[in-house]
């Protein structure tokens, strides 16, 4: 690790003041940042520890939830209102990392995880535009089994590693931000970027801007929601493909509303807007599930090793919708 100074922020104002320093970085649970610092991929000159900032999970009068950005992943998955009203979120968090890491990791930090692309990590032997802009991308012609099939560019084919964010994308979560200029908020689906010509930028956060809270809007039919993660081993592995889904059926078995998001397939948590639009008003049949999945993946592009993800994503979407349809 390169040398740095450490300071603990007592409140958001404190954090913003310290975080304004050139080369400063906010420190949450450290499960990703400390690792990247040890590899000298991240070289902050100052760490601002923000784990003392608000971490409460507040039930709102409208039925939604406001989650302090410093809340630990475990605390969110275990919260009674999350388990009851947003099971997809509890399931997504529980499928990520290990129990130890979930105890450490904060919600805000989970949003800001860097990719797990092996070429991004290999700073001594590989070229990576995300690590060194303009350098080139060795994943394009390399071992790219884990890489993106949607929304990638010729500069970067990395995927976003979070499970939690896939559920948040499906739920329409709102990210609350604070900077010296004031407060703003945006849908989680707008926070992360596609790589385009600037894969070094994962999100639209301004320098020094702080994530203060994640808001889950009320979504009654999210009680019928789930998360399915397909991976190379049964536990403690990143997703090849994952699907977060919620389904609202009317009495005649038609789809009143639906939410779908994909993980493991793109540079950002991928809200399946096209599939959702194709499904609304349709009968909840396997054929319609499959057709919607085909539509979402129509623009998918395979690299040398990851073509299987296209069919896997379609099947996983159909399987999740089938499971949701059968839920009591």
């Amino acid at each position, binding site marked *: *690790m390169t*040398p*740095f*100074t*450490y300071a*603990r922020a007592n409140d958001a104002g404190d954090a913003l003041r310290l975080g304004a320093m050139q080369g400063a970085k906010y*420190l949450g*649970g*450290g*499960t990703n940042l*400390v*690792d990247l610092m*040890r590899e000298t991929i991240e070289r902050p000159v100052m*760490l601002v*520890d923000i*784990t003392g900032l608000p971490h409460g999970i507040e039930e709102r009068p409208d039925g939604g939830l406001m989650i302090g950005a410093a809340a630990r992943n*475990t605390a969110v*998955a*275990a919260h*009674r209102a999350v*388990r*009851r009203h947003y*099971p997809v979120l*509890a*399931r997504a968090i*529980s*499928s990520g*990392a*290990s*129990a*130890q*890491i979930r*105890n*450490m990791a904060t919600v805000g930090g989970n949003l800001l995880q860097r990719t797990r692309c092996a070429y991004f990590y290999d700073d001594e032997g590989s070229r990576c535009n995300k690590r060194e802009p303009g350098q080139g991308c060795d994943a394009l012609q390399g071992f790219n089994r884990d890489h993106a099939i949607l929304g990638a560019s010729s500069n970067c084919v990395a995927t976003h590693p979070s499970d939690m964010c896939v559920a948040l994308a499906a739920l329409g979560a709102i990210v609350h931000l604070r900077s010296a200029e004031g407060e703003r908020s945006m849908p989680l689906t707008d926070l992360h970027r596609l790589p385009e010509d600037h894969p070094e930028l994962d999100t639209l956060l301004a320098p020094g801007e702080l994530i203060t809270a994640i808001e889950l809007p009320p979504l009654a039919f999210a009680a019928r929601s789930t998360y399915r993660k397909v991976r190379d081993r*049964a*536990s*403690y592995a990143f997703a090849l493909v994952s699907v977060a889904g919620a389904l609202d059926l009317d009495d005649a078995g038609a789809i009143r509303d639906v939410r779908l998001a994909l993980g493991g397939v793109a540079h950002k948590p991928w809200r399946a807007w096209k599939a959702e639009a194709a499904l609304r008003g349709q009968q909840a049949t396997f054929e319609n599930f499959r057709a919607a999945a085909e539509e979402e993946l129509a623009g998918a592009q395979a690299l040398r090793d990851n073509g299987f993800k296209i069919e896997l994503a379609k099947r996983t979407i159909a399987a999740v919708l089938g499971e949701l349809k059968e839920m009591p």
Partner: protein
Amino acid sequence: MTISINGSPVAIPDDPRVSLLEFLREHLHLFGAKKGCNQGACGACTVLLDDERILSCLTLAVQCEGRSVTTVEGLASQEGLHPLQQAFIEHDGFQCGYCTPGQICSAIGMAGELKRGVPSHVTRDLVADGIELSHDELRERMSGNLCRCGAYNGIASAIATTCGPDVERSPA
């Protein structure tokens, strides 16, 4: 500016780069927690921070100021080994022993999570009260601790007999 390590206050290191794992091993000579992968993939460095299991390799020692760390060295009492330590012996829960301190600290943390109703990836009913430590639950909840010898059957049976929700555990 101290951390409580197994009940004793210790001054935090001057250099913020020192991980909790390096602090334990190289500064305090508590060699129980192991440096396996040093990148959060193996669980050999697992310790309890305020009674919750965490990875000491990805924790900076300075982050633990004012908090309480329990390592495997802090589990035994005057009366003898912690029941889970004893169970690891009785159930052949190790071969080389390298992962054992992490496994034991992790399982003690897991027992607390079960008590608090923290769900896992394999928990079927998310809203039911009480989670049974089934075979699948135990293995899923312990998946963050690898054993390269493959002593998993002994590890699982030691934990199953000691850390189920109905088994009273002695305080760490």
